[in-house]
């Protein structure tokens, strides 16, 4: 697919945003998200350069295959209590596991 078609698809994927201003906002959000995520991939080089390359490639693959990221991300951060509690629980689990078992390896 050509790049232009892809861009149009991305914009059409952002349902609900109809005005010029909200589309521009969504695009900025999308670009910020992608660029910061790639930067975070580069941060891993302090641990190991090889791992960083792997993560960057994987990240690129994931980002390109689900490109309109913002609508998905927004749906995950709804205001409903169930969703909030779900992520609270997931974070608690991940944080505890990471610190408790990973604390000695840093």
């Amino acid at each position, binding site marked *: 697919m050509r790049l232009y078609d892809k861009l149009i698809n991305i914009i059409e994927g952002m349902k609900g945003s109809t005005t010029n201003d909200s589309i521009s906002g969504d695009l900025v959000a999308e670009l910020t998200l992608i660029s*910061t995520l790639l930067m975070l991939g580069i*941060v891993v080089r302090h641990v190991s350069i090889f791992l960083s390359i792997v993560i960057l490639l994987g990240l690129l693959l994931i980002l390109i295959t689900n490109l309109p990221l913002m609508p998905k991300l927004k749906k995950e951060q709804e205001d409903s209590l169930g969703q*909030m*509690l779900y992520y*609270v629980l997931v974070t608690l689990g991940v944080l505890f596991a990471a*610190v*408790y078992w990973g604390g000695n390896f840093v």
Partner: protein
Amino acid sequence: MNELIPLMVIFPIAAALLINLFGFKSTFVKYISIIVAFIIPIIPLASNFGLHYFGGHAPLESSLSGILYHTAITYSFTAFEQLFIFILGILGFFVVLIYVNSYKKASGPYLFLLFMGIAAVSALILSDDIFHMFVFFEIAAIVQVGIVAASTIKDRYEIALKYMIVGSIGSPIILLGIAFLLAIFGNVNITDIVNMINAGFPAASSPVFFASLALIFFGWLYTAGLPPFHTAKSGIYSGAEPQGAALLQAFSVITMVSILIAMVRIFSGLEIFNVILVAFSLLAMILSITMALVQTDFKRMIAFLAVGELGFIGLGMGIGTELSMTAGLFQAVNEMVITALLFIGFGAIAVVCKTTDINKLGGLISDYPKTAIMVLIGGFAMAGVPPLNGFQSKLMLVQSALNAGYPEFAIIIVLISIATFVVFVKVFYLMFLKTKPKALEVSGEKIPKSTIITLAVFLIICITLGLFPSIATDTISGFVGGLL
């Protein structure tokens, strides 16, 4: 005059109870609350630096190890605490002024909540006792919910209940973390715990210590509203009245900073602490800024920005050099003022236009030119445009990240600042510059003078701190030097 140290907490509490007692007797409540709000920022300026032991129980020296044990709840008051409590007092004064001026009937219970919150966060930053911090943090959380429930926003009760239920998972967890520390060290005084760790206390490298780090860190995420709590926290900000939201974010900043300092003191020996701190701060910055960009409710936008800016503080503390920590704490001071300015400025527009949807607004610059310009400069300050204070702290952060060998963080900070700028340009354009939609009826209501004065004063603080950052940074770097 060391006696004034506990007064910083006791005076607002006593005043709050008194005001609540008089309830709805409007004029009396108005005068007394203005006087109280005026005195609160004066107390930290008049007080001497030092320690205060409640009940006069001076620390005991152990005959075996020679370590000092603090038996009393201890308040430590230095120039750093003075700075924060003073800024909080100034914010509180103007918030009370706006509230008293713009509502015909001043409600005693609402003012009670405001003063109680000021007392609670003052206690949080003064206290050297981690359980004492928990107690006042819970009071602050209840106050936040109360301020939201007392507003006139449509979905306030839902927002308040959501925050409370999510918080009820968070706050027992932080208490459990404190209990773990108590189980290891038999003590809840931070100085004692730090002394024991430095003396090579064996349990300080045990799994239980790591577990307590995880639990307290999770509770800290809740206090600060970093992810996964950012949706609940931004809901709280957008659910409160504008002046209430201005004070609420100051509460969050101070709560976050004081618990963060406690964690840095206790856990800085564990390297994973810095890793998770940086990770969650970056996550907060990215998620909040992207969410702010896609909102259509401008109060919610500012709320997400307010949450995201907290990430800068965490990042500065997480990098862990003296410069970066100074920059992070300086950012905390700046953010309190800037975000309060924005909440009040945008909130005033929301009140006169009776809508918060940016698509329904436009062309307001001809109606409210003063507010528009001041809000614009406030937005510049948050995005980091020289010569305002946000620029100074963000510049320091970028420099410190570069010096510490993490240029990626510097790039992310710059990117996030650019995105913040975009949010502002967008909101400003849609609210003030775009042609006015026909459906919008500006009732001709004027923005109260007290609001304009407040915005002007906050702006002066922003510009002063931007031109002479050493007023704050000297104090903060002295404090950070003692911390490391």
